[in-house]
């Protein structure tokens, strides 16, 4: 069953057609990679999923519900979490507080005026947050300031924050961009582990072919605003259209 259904999405900026008739469907429980050369429209497509951009035409349905016109926090509350290209975390707060915030957001919804209850006594949130810290192996760093973490740990923390909400769909925008090889491999392991344990559906936008081919169960290749191929990883590598898109017309 497909959890995210994108149909005939078009988006243009001025005269530039960033997306043309994009069709995409992400199957539940799989890791779906979206790849493509620079300027292919990957980020534009992602921004259409999360409410940052509204497509000119077409539909984006999540679990049968249209995401178009919804605000970022509303989309998140339906069960879509997002990991950013550069980790977006609460850098002035401690690692533990960072993880507690999504737990509260999950429990209390988009707004709750619980100004007189004490954070210390919210036992269910603490249990959840402690468990998340264990899951991403950061329990020993929980009292550190988030800004003092290494890049890889920031990514790990951001992942923990997204997972704390038990999302149905996790969107990852180049999760290994700018990482050292060791950190990249750690991230791959982390994602694979999450997938094995929790069976969360993921849509990954990625440059790094190493990451894509070690994770993805399905790959869509985007070039010049259209999906040129959507297939299993083993069929993508040698596909002539893909080589053409990446190498600018292979003969």
């Amino acid at each position: 069953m497909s959890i995210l259904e994108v149909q005939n999405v078009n988006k243009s900026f001025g005269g530039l057609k960033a997306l043309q008739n994009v069709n995409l469907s992400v199957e539940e429980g799989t890791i779906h990679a979206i790849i493509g050369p620079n300027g292919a429209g990957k980020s534009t497509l992602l921004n259409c999923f999360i409410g940052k951009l509204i497509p000119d035409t077409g539909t984006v349905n999540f679990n049968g519900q249209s995401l178009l016109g919804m605000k970022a926090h509303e989309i998140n509350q339906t069960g879509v979490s997002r990991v950013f290209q550069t980790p977006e975390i609460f850098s002035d707060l401690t690692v533990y507080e960072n993880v507690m915030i999504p737990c509260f957001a999950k429990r209390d919804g988009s707004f709750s005026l619980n100004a007189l209850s004490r954070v210390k006594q919210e036992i269910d949130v603490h249990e959840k947050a402690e468990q998340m810290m264990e899951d991403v192996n950061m329990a020993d760093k929980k009292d550190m300031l988030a800004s003092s973490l290494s890049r890889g740990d920031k990514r790990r923390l951001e992942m923990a924050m997204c997972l704390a909400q038990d999302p149905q769909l996790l969107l990852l925008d180049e999760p290994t961009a700018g990482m050292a090889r060791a950190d990249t491999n750690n991230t791959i392991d982390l994602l694979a582990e999450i997938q094995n344990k929790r069976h969360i559906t993921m849509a990954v936008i990625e440059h790094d072919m190493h990451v894509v081919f070690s994770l993805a169960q399905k790959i869509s290749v985007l070039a010049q605003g259209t999906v040129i191929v959507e297939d299993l990883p083993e069929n993508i590598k040698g596909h002539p259209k893909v080589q053409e898109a990446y190498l600018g017309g292979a003969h």
Partner: protein
Amino acid sequence: MIDKLQNNDRMLMTLFTLMVLAGPILLAPFGAGYPDLLQRFCIFGIFAIGFNILFGLTGYLSFGHAAFLGVGSYSAVWMFKLLTMNVIPALILAVVIAGLFSLLIGFISLRRSGIYFSILTLAFAQMSFSLAYSVLTPITNGETGLQLTLNDPRILDGANTTGSLPSTNFFGLTMNSTAKFDFLGMVLQFNVGFYFCAVMLILAFYLAMRIFRSPFGLMLKAIKTNQNRLNYTGVNTRPYTLAAFVISGMYAGLAGGLMACTDPLAGAERMQWTASGEVVLMTILGGAGTLLGPVLGAGFIKYFENIFSKINDNVLHSWFSFLPDGLEDLIVWVLHFFVGKGWHLTLGLLFMMVVIFLPGGLLQGASHIIDWIRGKKQSSSTQISNPNSMPAE
């Protein structure tokens, strides 16, 4: 660790309560033990605590909080005129009206953030000031300010037979009654108005502490660090900032109401932008985002305002009379700009020094000093206990 934190909060609260209640005794040696100044400490303390809930937690810098202070004062005085001289209804009305007013201004201003938000609040406050000063004269009595008169109805108090203006009271306890005691050559003055304000300050502080420690407070801190992430975490930030804005507006209303309780008149100048700027100074000077900082900053500014603005050229001459005439005149001439009416120059310099050298405010300075003393003790004690630990070279 959690138990320790909780104990710390309890200890902080207890210490704070004791210090505030003992104010007339503790501050008497510094020449600040008289009711008028003590009341101002409490009132501006409340104002700054409230401002800190908005600025310290969410990072939204409002330049128009004096508007809510003024609205609180006007509401309280109207209650004194129409209903009763008891302070409780006056304070309730002050808080409610300030809350509604801040809901309106916040709803509009919070559509923007950063500098645009600051400018919007400043514009609203100046608008309120001008309205109070001119157009709304029937309500605010314009330039003269709103005052009590003998002809006011005061429905609950009955007819005024004494022929003099009644004074504000708390169920019969008159606000301006003071008990004086001689103690070690000082006069200790225990004033009803001060203790009323002090209790309000303690309650305000307690409420602020609960907000700081609540999930709501955590969300406000998150807004300050990364609003984008918070949006993508499923949190709608607008109602959070608006709630913080209204809460801090209500604090300002309470402070304004208390001002009217201790001295039942209200003028438009209370809403002017300088008054809004003052609370920003207090909060930053003391330490924005900390619990004690704003109270400390408010006390600091009000104390030095009081001390410095009382010094005049005659006092300076008497201080430096031991110097030769020419030198004395020169020093007095230089210092003249820093005291009396020029005390704002001193305040400006102090503020600059704090912002440059202690960005965390006075509270950070205090903790530096404590760390330094502790560190000194520790290093000296370790040296004594391990005299042989030095590397043998």
